[in-house]
């Protein structure tokens, strides 16, 4: 059982954070300065750089500012940008969370805005001390899985071990989200066979085809030079490794960024924009995708790495599972789990899977992950366009 934080909208979180959100790059510095003295007190910086409005980024911000791990939100606006700040503020307030908008142009510039924002943070931190606690079941958890800085060991050790942890969670009716369709190219038919309905299977095939088309137009797969240095030769080889993260449970639905799963079970996140190719690469780096999973309500995300990623995230803790024994020796301070032991014959896949599961429960109960303790709070949000999910993407009534 988990000791969660009960929000007035009825959802339960595993952290009691405040987010400070800049609504255009022009407000970024002020927002960062507001956060700085409180950065080790659960105050997280997120934001959107663009001046033009975009439905996807608005939805992402709504979901992040009302995330169950978040107890309050401060919006920092320059004043003239296109972001619908009033709408966002209203949504956060309707969720019962304390929220405040600081408009730099109205407040009288940089210094006054920083002072006003920091005063609100101090007051809200005190207010959050009395957030009610509540028992939280495994079936109320949403967990994501992601790989980054992959090498050829990722698909041998860390990814299948995270897949085992997912299987344990799905058995207990947690909602589990895996990604990303651009790194599942070649796996579409295998995934479709695991879909709970043939219609969902077809949606999965369509969504991977969309990803392949998108990346082909961009002229570049989701494949970095370090992947090749680490022994991965092709996108389909990387996909096989990435696919192993999903475990072996049936796939019950598809979500798009910001869609909160309505039941427990295993979901595929479709993060490739709909419609014609625009705004560049679907996700410019690993953190773009972490932010999307967190916007889907993920309380925490398991993150495997072979080459040695150090990233964390704002809002939700990131659990690092290191696939490569050499990398672990070199970077153990950044790694929560040493899955390379499987290659060295020092542990079985099931043992590491159970270790990850146990750690997830500890982290849900407040234990800090390595990246969290080191202060990692990376965040990025770009432009995208999405259409709503089709009916076959939702779990069928049980």
């Amino acid at each position, binding site marked *: 059982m988990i000791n969660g934080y009960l929000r007035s909208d009825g959802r339960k979180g595993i952290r009691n954070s405040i987010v400070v959100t800049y609504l255009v790059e022009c407000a970024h510095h002020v927002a960062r300065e507001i956060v700085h003295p409180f950065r080790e007190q659960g105050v997280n910086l997120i934001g959107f750089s663009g001046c033009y409005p975009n439905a996807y980024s608005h939805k992402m911000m709504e979901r992040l500012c009302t995330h169950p791990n978040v107890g309050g939100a401060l919006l920092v606006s320059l004043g003239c940008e296109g972001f619908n700040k009033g709408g966002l503020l209203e949504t956060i307030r309707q969720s019962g969370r304390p929220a405040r908008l600081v408009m730099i142009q109205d407040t009288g510039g940089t210094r006054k805005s920083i002072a006003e924002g920091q005063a609100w943070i101090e007051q809200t931190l005190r207010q959050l001390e009395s957030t009610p606690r509540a028992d939280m079941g495994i079936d109320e958890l949403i967990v994501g899985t992601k790989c980054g800085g992959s090498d050829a060991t990722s698909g041998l050790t860390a990814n299948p071990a995270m897949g085992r942890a997912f299987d344990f969670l799905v058995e207990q009716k947690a909602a589990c989200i895996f990604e990303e369709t651009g790194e599942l190219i070649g796996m579409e038919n295998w995934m479709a066979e695991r879909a709970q309905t043939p219609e969902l299977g077809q949606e999965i095939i369509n969504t991977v085809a969309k990803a*392949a088309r998108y990346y082909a137009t961009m002229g570049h797969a989701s494949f970095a030079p370090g992947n090749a240095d680490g022994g991965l030769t092709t996108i389909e080889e990387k996909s096989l490794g990435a696919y192993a993260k999903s475990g072996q449970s049936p796939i019950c639905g598809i979500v798009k960024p910001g869609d909160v799963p309505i039941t427990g079970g295993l979901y595929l996140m479709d993060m490739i924009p709909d419609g014609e190719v625009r705004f560049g690469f679907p996700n410019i780096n690993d953190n773009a995708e972490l932010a999307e999973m967190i916007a889907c309500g993920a309380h925490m995300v398991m993150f495997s790495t072979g080459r040695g990623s150090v990233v964390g995230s704002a809002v939700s803790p990131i659990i690092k599972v290191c696939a490569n024994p050499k990398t672990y020796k070199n970077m153990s301070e950044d790694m929560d789990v040493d899955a390379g032991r499987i290659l060295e014959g020092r542990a079985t896949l099931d043992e590491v899977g159970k270790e990850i599961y146990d750690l997830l429960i500890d982290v849900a109960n407040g234990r800090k992950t390595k990246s969290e303790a080191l202060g990692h709070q990376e965040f990025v949000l770009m432009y995208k366009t999405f259409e709503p999910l089709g009916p076959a993407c939702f779990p069928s009534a049980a």
Partner: protein
Amino acid sequence: MAFFQKTDGSGVLLLAPGDNVAVATCELPAGTEREVAGRKVALKSRVDVGHKFAIQAIASGVRIFKYGAPIGVASRDIEPGEYVHTHNMTSDYLPTFTLEEGHQFVKEVKS
């Protein structure tokens, strides 16, 4: 898709029966000899942890199998024991890019 629970200490892993490449579970020097799926294979060069090598002759144009699944196609004839990577195989889907010397982002297609 094939998973393994535990390594056997040989330093070599055949992920699925029928695969034509095997994976090194630790760094294996050139000349390392192992029996894989009933075939004796000697490594022609060093193979790093997680990287793969041919356990049988693979003719140019033939699919490469790992985890029991196709991961691409041989772009030239590959001998048993030869390191398999971007120099001798390509994707069926999208080209692989890598950082060459001089740090240019280049498409990896070598003849």
